[in-house]
């Protein structure tokens, strides 16, 4: 994965290896801030979440990057079969973000300040 990640498509593995590899792959795409996550069970019961920490030091300060949870929500819509709504949000996100790999560029384009200066609500408002 570290040398040539293009050779992989879908990876399936037990719990521990999955924990390690998912964080490794997230590190390769500039971190956990842009990695959506879904936990699927039997009878299509599912929980979608962001995989980064709770961030107590920046709670309620309108500083958090909402991208991960938005992407997880897109996964949830896909799981629920709401493809129209999912496509609507995904197109806008892709247009504004320019693809997941350009998340940092997106914030730089929208606002020339450092990413930490960008308000969370401003980002979501831009997408709306």
């Amino acid at each position, binding site marked *: *994965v*570290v*040398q040539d990640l293009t050779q992989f498509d879908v990876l399936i593995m037990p719990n*521990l290896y999955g*924990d*390690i*590899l*998912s*964080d*490794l792959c*997230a*590190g*390769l795409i*500039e*971190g*956990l801030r842009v990695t959506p996550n879904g936990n699927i069970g039997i009878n299509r019961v599912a929980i979608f979440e962001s995989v980064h920490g709770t961030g107590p030091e920046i709670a309620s300060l309108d500083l958090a990057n909402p991208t991960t949870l938005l992407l997880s929500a897109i996964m949830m819509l896909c799981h629920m079969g709401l493809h129209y709504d999912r496509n609507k949000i995904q197109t806008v996100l892709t247009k504004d973000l320019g693809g997941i790999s350009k998340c940092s560029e997106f914030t730089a384009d929208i606002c020339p300040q450092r990413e930490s200066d960008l308000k969370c609500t401003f980002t979501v408002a831009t997408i709306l």
Partner: protein
Amino acid sequence: MTARCVRTLSGSLQLLLRNRWPKPPPAQYGGRHTVTLIPGDGIGPELANHVRELFRFCCVPVDFEVVNVDSTMDSEDDINNAIMAIRRNGVALKGNLETNHNLPPSYKSRNNLLRTTLDLYANVMHCQSLPGVRTRHRNIDIMIIRENTEGEYSSLEHENVPGVVECLKIITRTKSLRIADYAFRTAREKGRTRVTAVHKANIMKLGDGLFLECCKEVAGGYPEITFDSMIVDNTTMQLVSRPQQFDVMVMPNLYGNVVSNVCTGLVGGPGLVPGANYGEDYAVFETGTRNTGKSIANTNTANPTAMLLASCLLLDHLKLHAYANMIRRAILSTVTETRLHTADLGGQGSTSEVVQSIMKAVESTGPRTLSL
């Protein structure tokens, strides 16, 4: 460690610290060492031949006792012969022995058998960025110390209920203290300032919790070295984003396997990094990531750098530092020559071309050598 530091430690740790560094065997028969050579499978035999060729060329006072091990046979006679040879000589250079996972569970990995029988408890890999090798990250210098004899590789599995397999991961206080002490001693000897323990103690509270506790206990005896710990998933993420933050890393067996492969990938691939397995009485040297390379066997395309650097570690262990440094300098000067990079580094060079270039580099530095 000072006497005062030793007295403050627990009894088991004191007992451990009475053991000294493994001593290399004395030279025999006119100043020449005898080293066991296990060619292994895949690219192992051709790389072993290149090592012998290079040593003969450089007039290194080492004779190889070759012991072939057939990894396809059920019987353990071959590997027992190899173990006996290593006990006799004290030191070995080895290629990887293939473990086909389609074989029945009663078939034990020959490599694992060798490591556990000889109690080669420390696997040491030094991953350094090499000039001339283009990688995503630069200035990497990480020493990985991996516990080699227990953990997830204890080969203890059972199936009490059909379809439900239980696999035992063994973590013991003695071996955890031993590997932690090895890590801190190595860090002190090499002038390193930080040791990071890699674990998953938030989930495996007893197993990895014990390992972490042992590392903390040993850290108390080395006040000049900073000790910290990191969970294994965060470690792999940090390794691929900011690998320069790591110095020495110590960890149990499976995490060591994963982390060492990640670090090898970061510095250029499995063809570049040598590995060493140290025990109290024996030492075995091999390539860092222990690849058999079956798909490229006998195609003259394998990268010989890792095996040749492993042979330099072997020479250092035998205290033949002049030969080790001479060969290492020649290897590193060849690696910077992009024209000679093998296929794994994106080049077109062949194994024999690289070895010839190394021999020319050795000859040009002026020592007495055989003719090319």
